[in-house]
């Protein structure tokens, strides 16, 4: 395969401690190497160079994403672009079609995206869409917290058997890590109810807190690359910050052999709320950031708001119902037997609304108040707080206090009383931006060991060259540069040039296959088989995702600790 040399770039590669150095990047056969002989030369001419972006949490593929597309033709019509010689047709803004997702991420310099919620029973669907998403390497997190198997093992205190079940689900779904979404609450939504962290889930006699702790322990027994990935209870409720902090405490004592957190909580903006109702609603970003600053076992992504119309979607069925009750807009729900659920409803984030204004501030506050950028990731929980295409706006806000002040002036005046944003002076450096968009995310997912998120020798030849000088301070120019790269290189191949997609190779799908003791698996299978015989609507043999669904596999093997 051809060699590539990127010269005269100013490189930001946080996992290797490279802080804006003039440095050549050599790529051969898709991987970063020390030197090349006869390369194609790309002259970066002093521009900013980073590893390909790694998104830790985004809803890009599967049943609820597609239900969002299907029931929002008005969103589909927003992003129409005709096919070209290279690209297929595009549609959508908050729920783009699969092709547009690949192209738009690649244009922003991203080369890996984690689909954040895969219902195990519908895993084939998630994979079908990921295969149809060009360019991006991908993986998906199967939902494991409202599963009857999980709750029964947690109830019995059988963490080893729980680990065996988690391992089986990873393999059966070709999944990457353990996703937890409103543990207990989604099962209760099967009856139209919800619950909080320490409530008991009837029939199963467990609390959400016990589920989270149990899965946290099982995850570390399996030595998974990623920690448990948690959407905590009571998303979007005023006053929920206490529950969020309590959730972090649950796994404080859980040990890991991995060099990473034992819990990642996602879209933390939605979980950092003070007040008792929407009237006295306020930001508690300082409380959450304070906790993260004082502890090392938890990381977060921000789930920052992008103003405008979007499509919210989550496995947290009761939460979507609440949101629909507030807006009165259309609402889709899809409960999944023995496992999970989902809800979808459109939502408009308006700078005129006091509540939306505070929400808008909180995500950015979290990023600014958490001192160590290795503990925080940039997300919008696409498309829940806004579409991923808004990332460049967030980057420009983090890098420019001036930009934030100008934007704040356009928001509801409540921002000056109930939010903290106007009082924060910190500005992110490009190095810190590189951390929260690739270094930290790759490390938190354990993917840095598999060539993602950095440019050291042996890493994937995934590179973003942004059309800006490292000295740039103009927020508008920064935003523009991060929206359309000068070059995006994926596995040594130029996929974007001057903001246009020029090649569309297939991405790889990363999945984890944890091995555990046969006896343990056999014992677990007795219970699982009974679930299929009596309660599932598909058979056990038809459940696992067949190899045909993952044509470009990247398997990561792990072994359960005794």
């Amino acid at each position, binding site marked *: 395969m051809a060699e590539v040399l990127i010269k005269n770039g100013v490189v930001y590669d946080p996992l290797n401690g490279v802080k804006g150095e003039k440095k050549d990047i050599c790529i051969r056969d898709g991987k970063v190497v020390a030197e090349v002989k006869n390369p194609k030369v790309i002259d970066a001419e002093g521009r900013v160079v980073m590893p390909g972006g790694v998104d830790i949490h985004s809803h890009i593929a599967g049943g609820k994403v597609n239900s969002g597309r299907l029931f929002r*033709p008005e969103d589909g019509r927003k992003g129409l672009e005709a096919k070209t010689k290279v690209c*297929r047709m595009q549609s959508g803004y908050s729920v783009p079609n699969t092709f547009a997702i690949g192209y738009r991420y690649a244009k922003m310099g991203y080369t890996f995206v984690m689909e954040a919620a895969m219902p195990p029973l519908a895993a084939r669907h998630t994979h079908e869409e990921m295969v149809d998403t060009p360019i991006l390497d991908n993986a998906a997190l199967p939902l494991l917290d409202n599963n009857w198997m999980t709750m029964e093992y947690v109830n019995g205190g059988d963490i080893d058997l729980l680990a065996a079940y988690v391992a089986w689900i990873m393999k059966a779904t070709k999944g990457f890590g353990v996703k937890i979404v409103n543990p207990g609450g989604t099962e209760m939504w*099967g009856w139209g109810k919800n619950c909080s962290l320490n409530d008991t889930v009837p029939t199963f006699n467990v609390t959400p807190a016990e589920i989270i702790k149990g899965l946290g322990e099982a995850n570390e027994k399996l030595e998974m690359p990623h920690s448990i990935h948690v959407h905590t209870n009571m998303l979007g409720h005023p006053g929920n910050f206490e529950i969020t902090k309590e959730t972090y405490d649950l796994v404080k004592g859980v040990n890991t052999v991995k060099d990473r957190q034992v819990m990642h909580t996602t879209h933390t903006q939605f979980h950092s709320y003070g007040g008792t109702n929407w009237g006295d609603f306020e930001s508690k970003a300082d409380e959450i950031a304070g906790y993260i600053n004082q502890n090392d076992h938890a990381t977060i992504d921000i789930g920052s708001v992008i103003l405008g119309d979007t499509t919210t979607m989550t496995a947290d069925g009761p939460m979507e119902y609440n949101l629909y009750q507030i807006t009165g807009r*259309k609402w889709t*729900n899809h*409960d999944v037997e023995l496992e999970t659920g989902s809800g979808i409803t459109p939502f408009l984030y308006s700078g005129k609304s006091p509540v939306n204004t505070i929400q808008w501030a909180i995500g950015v506050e979290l990023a600014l108040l958490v001192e160590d950028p290795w503990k925080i990731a940039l997300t919008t929980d696409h498309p829940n707080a806004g579409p991923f295409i808004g990332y460049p706006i967030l980057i420009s806000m983090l890098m420019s206090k001036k930009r934030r002040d100008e934007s704040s002036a356009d928001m509801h005046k409540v921002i000056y009383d109930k939010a903290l944003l106007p009082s924060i002076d910190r500005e992110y450096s490009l190095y810190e931006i590189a951390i929260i968009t690739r270094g930290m995310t790759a490390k938190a997912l354990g993917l840095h060991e598999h060539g993602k998120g950095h440019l050291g020798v042996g890493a994937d030849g995934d590179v973003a060259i942004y059309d800006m000088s490292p000295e740039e301070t103009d927020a508008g120019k920064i935003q523009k540069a991060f929206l359309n790269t000068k070059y995006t290189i994926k596995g040594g191949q130029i996929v974007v040039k001057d903001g246009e997609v020029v090649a569309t190779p297939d991405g790889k799908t990363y999945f984890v296959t944890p091995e555990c003791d046969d006896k343990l698996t056999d014992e677990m299978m007795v219970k699982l088989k009974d679930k299929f015989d009596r309660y599932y609507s598909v058979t056990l043999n038809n459940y696992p995702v067949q190899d045909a669904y993952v044509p470009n596999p990247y398997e990561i093997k792990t072994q359960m600790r005794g």
Partner: protein
Amino acid sequence: MVEVTDVVCSLCGCVCDDITVEVEDNKVTKVKRGACSVGKSKLMGHNRIKSPAIRVNGELKDCSYDEAIKKAAEILAASRRPLLYGWSSTVCEADKVGVELAEELGAVIDNTASVCHGPSVLAIQDVGLPSCTLGEVKNRADVIIYWGANPAEAHANHMKRYSYVSKGFWTEEGKKAKKLVVVDVRATKTTKMADVFLQIEQGKDYLVLSALRAILYGHADVVPDEVGGVSKKDLLETAEMMKGAKFGATFFGMGVTHTGARQNNIVNAIQMTRAAHTHTKFTITPMRGHYNVAGINQVCTWETGFPFAVDLTRGYAWYNPGELSATDLLIRQECDAALVIASDPGAHFPGESIKHLAKVPVIQIDPFPNPTTEFADVVFPAAVSGVEAEGNVYRMDNIPIRLRKLIDSEYPEDEEILKRILDEVRAIKEKESN
């Protein structure tokens, strides 16, 4: 002889996946368990199209696949307004090639939803759909409503596997502990099983749904003594039954999507579900007909952004059902060539549409002959998905299941035929542009 278990039926939207068959000498010789009678006969195989053929002087003449591919590609490449129609009785892998072919041609791609649950899709786009998987119904539902649907005849295993007759976690006693409400204009095999049969007047679904909605929202006072042929007393009782449910599940069929107020019926049915949801858990699910009609809607949506009636003339997707569905296009005599796959517009379209379709060149891909074959100009026999070919399908509740291949086929799969047509179309276009 080998016994194959976990066989998946590729006939109706139930997509039963627990069928056991016997295979001997590359033939399915026996269906031992799991399938209903129509499912059984599909698995056992029947009358096939024997050879690819091209119509010459009014007669279909056998030809090779190469010749048929060439002819089909020529027709499509020369067409100014091609229509690609069907897609619901084949697998998603084929559907994907179909979308790509439509994109290459600048064609209109439409699927059978536009003549079955198209109105349901429109309703979902209006108000959304509070639904669930069929296993949720099996494990939880104690009140089941079939509205304008006759599962006992059209989805024979539906009640047994998923709803009224099934037994699940909280429904161990089966139908003894459940209530079945059936709403229909006439008595059927399904209505005979019902605890409550609301026999309504033809076309009055909207009114009856409105009345139930009003009662569920606490406005029984505005409901007259009789609505659409149903007494207020019966409506009140039904509403009470719904409110008293631990988990209610409504299924609706073509009897309500294609009569009277059409999509507005479905909007109203969904709104009724929301009204019931203010008292207890309630869900609603369309009874999709063909085994993968849900799947083509899925594929078409994630690839084009829209579920059916998509025009790709402009290079991007333009969605406008009512203008761009197959029947609309044909009635306006706009389409000048059509590819029909795994469906039978010749039997199911309105007369005026068929008249135009018969006039234009038609390419058919299907394992089985049907009335469309009578006027098709190029015919491709294909392997039977689920018997001779594997692939992904979506059950009526959008659960993806992989069809199994049981025996070898002398015929190519839909996906392969479509890919070869696509390659040939590209070759023709390439030549033309040089």
